[in-house]
């Protein structure tokens, strides 16, 4: 009984982390699907989202606003606006001018952008990690056998619900809206979409903005969940989310969701049953193994080499 409780607890923790990975992974996968590049700076955009949310929350506290829904909504909106603007600007400054050049060039540009943003926040806010108020306290507790109690905290529930709303919204947007349809067309064939009169530049920008906004949501959620942020906050999370995107099949949005959940659960099981120190090793090894043996991921389409 205790084993089962322990297992369920790890499962819940894993799904929590996994659903935020999925939110970040969407940004990687959408950008990859449309322009075929890895947006290395995406992890930093997520980190900036978390910082903005923290600034908003602290600012509201200074002003004396104490009503939780207002705090959450204002923090969320601020984070999404700043991250989206950042995503837009990054694409404009660092990626658009090098689009279509030798494949190494956009990639190096993206790495440069990632280093730049990390240090931008580092210089502005210092390198120390700063406490992030958890805001949503408390949990449901159940089943206590031999001292082990399983808990499902309210913040975990918030994370699930928010992720679910975002994913549903995204799915509706992609399938119903004009821009969403244009997105799909561009990811099928950029050149053709251009010929058909779709403003591909605008669609690419939109992709970056959507990815960044979702990353900002993840930033707020994970900030509250972990309880602190620092400028390196985005680097590892970005790498994990990228792993999730590849695991699910890069370019595929349902794949990113699935990959995120699997990775989160895998990690939480590793720390629960093996050792927390090696959980990063497990996820990187997982990434390497997938790329070697099934580079198309679980739900990705195979790419035919064109000659």
């Amino acid at each position, binding site marked *: 009984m205790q084993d089962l409780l322990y297992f369920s607890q790890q499962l819940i923790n894993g799904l929590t982390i996994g659903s935020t990975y999925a939110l970040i992974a969407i940004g990687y996968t959408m950008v990859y699907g449309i322009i075929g*590049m*890895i947006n290395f700076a995406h992890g930093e955009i997520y980190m*900036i989202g978390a910082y*903005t949310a*923290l*600034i*908003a929350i*602290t*600012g509201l506290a*200074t002003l004396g606003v104490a009503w939780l829904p207002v705090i959450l909504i204002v923090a969320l909106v*601020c984070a999404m*606006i*700043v991250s989206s*603007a*950042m995503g*837009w*600007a990054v694409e404009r*400054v*660092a990626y658009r001018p*090098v689009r279509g050049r030798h*494949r*190494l060039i956009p*990639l*190096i*540009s993206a*790495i*440069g*952008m*990632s*280093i*730049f943003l*990390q*240090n*931008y*926040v580092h*210089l*502005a*806010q*210092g390198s*120390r990690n*700063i*406490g992030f*108020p958890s805001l949503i306290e408390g949990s449901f507790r159940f089943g206590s056998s031999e001292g082990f109690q399983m808990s499902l905290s309210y913040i975990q529930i918030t994370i699930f619900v928010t992720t679910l709303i975002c994913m549903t919204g995204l799915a509706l947007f992609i399938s119903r809206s004009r821009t969403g349809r244009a997105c799909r067309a561009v990811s099928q064939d950029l050149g053709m979409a251009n010929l058909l009169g779709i403003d591909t530049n605008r669609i690419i920008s939109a992709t970056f903005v959507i990815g960044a906004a979702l990353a900002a949501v993840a930033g707020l959620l994970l900030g509250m969940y972990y309880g602190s942020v620092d400028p390196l906050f985005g*680097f590892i999370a970005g*790498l994990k989310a*990228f792993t999730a995107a*590849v695991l699910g099949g890069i370019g595929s949005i349902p794949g990113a969701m699935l990959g995120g959940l699997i990775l989160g659960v895998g990690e939480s099981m590793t720390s629960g049953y093996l050792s927390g*120190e*090696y959980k*990063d*090793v497990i996820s*990187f*090894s997982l*990434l*390497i193994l997938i*790329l*070697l043996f099934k*580079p198309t991921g679980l739900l990705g389409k195979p790419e035919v*080499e064109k*000659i």
Partner: protein
Amino acid sequence: MAAKNFGHAFFCAFITLIISYPIIGFNLEAQGIDVTLTGADTTTIVLVLLAALVVFLFQLFRDQIMGALKRVPMPSSDANKEPMAENKRAKIESWILTGIVVFALFWPFFVSRGSVDLATLVLIYIMLALGLNVVVGLAGLLDLGYVAFYAVGAYTFALLSQYLGISFWLALPIGALLAALFGLVLGFPVLRLRGDYLAIVTLGFGEIIRILLNNWTTLTGGPNGIGGIPDPTLFGMEFGRRIKEEGNTSFHETFGIAYSGEHKVIFLYLISLVLAVFTALVIRRFMRMPVGRAWEALREDEIASRSLGLSRTAVKLSAFTIGAFFAGFAGTVFASKQGFISPESFVFLESAIILAIVVLGGMGSQIGVVLAAIAVTILPELAREFSEYRMLIFGAAMVLMMVWRPQGLMPMRRIHIELEKQE
């Protein structure tokens, strides 16, 4: 048109404000558990507003500015110029290089100990960057975990000396070969991946090695690292005040001169210099050999290379292994210079710095890479007040270089080959 430009310029300025004001304009301060928010000082706010104004003006007059920039003659308009005749160029080059090396040999005797120490570090970075240049610049494989091989070299020496008492000179080839072996073993499965996947996988490898070093406490000492790594000896002569190893003599007593801490620093510098020159010469030779041409061919067009009978795996693996070899070299020297190593020295940031050196110098260009290594290491030391902006500037420079001058500051020059007409 003007109205549209105005709107766009206004939008861009607005975005600039959004992405800079919240992050720069407010300071989060942690006091215990409490976090407070303070506004930044007036100068910062004015700077942010100024930045937005600059963006606004730039976007408003974008066409005029770009037009003006185009009229500025570009020095790189030698697209159709043939390279200078090889014999002439080789002569000039070898004179200049010999001059620089001779200068570098005597220079340390006239400057301060700190400068020599810094110069040794520069030479280590030169070795690293020349090695990475093979992988990224010539073969076109983006390796973001290069620092892992550097760590293998450093830890090999540290562990060998700690457990087996092996000296620097023996550890140098062992460390380099072991790093090369790591390159070979790790490279074999990953090199068939596409470019961007390769970058991520090598990044993952680098992190795995660092995490292992951090957690395998019984062997590596974990985050505490390994200390007491011996200095190199000169034909059995030690540079310390007292002899540590039985059977060795001490340098200052043998030559009957007073002990000075500087001897050791200069000796290490000279070793690094010799090794860096060796690295440069060997790689230069490789570049003119079939293997070097195969690296470049694979970077230029993988499919065409394969259609001409080049084995993709063999060619990539050779570049990866040779790059790793020189990283191992540099690692051994680094361990000896520091006397102490810990996983802190082998983080992703190091890989990024080495990559920045290669990119700034000019991918494939040896002279460019050497100059960039010198600049990147020394400039932050000269302008200490700016040293915290170092990585910010690197990041921005990498983006700007890719946008404006992807071939680097000193692009690679092609080799001129004399041909005789055949009948």
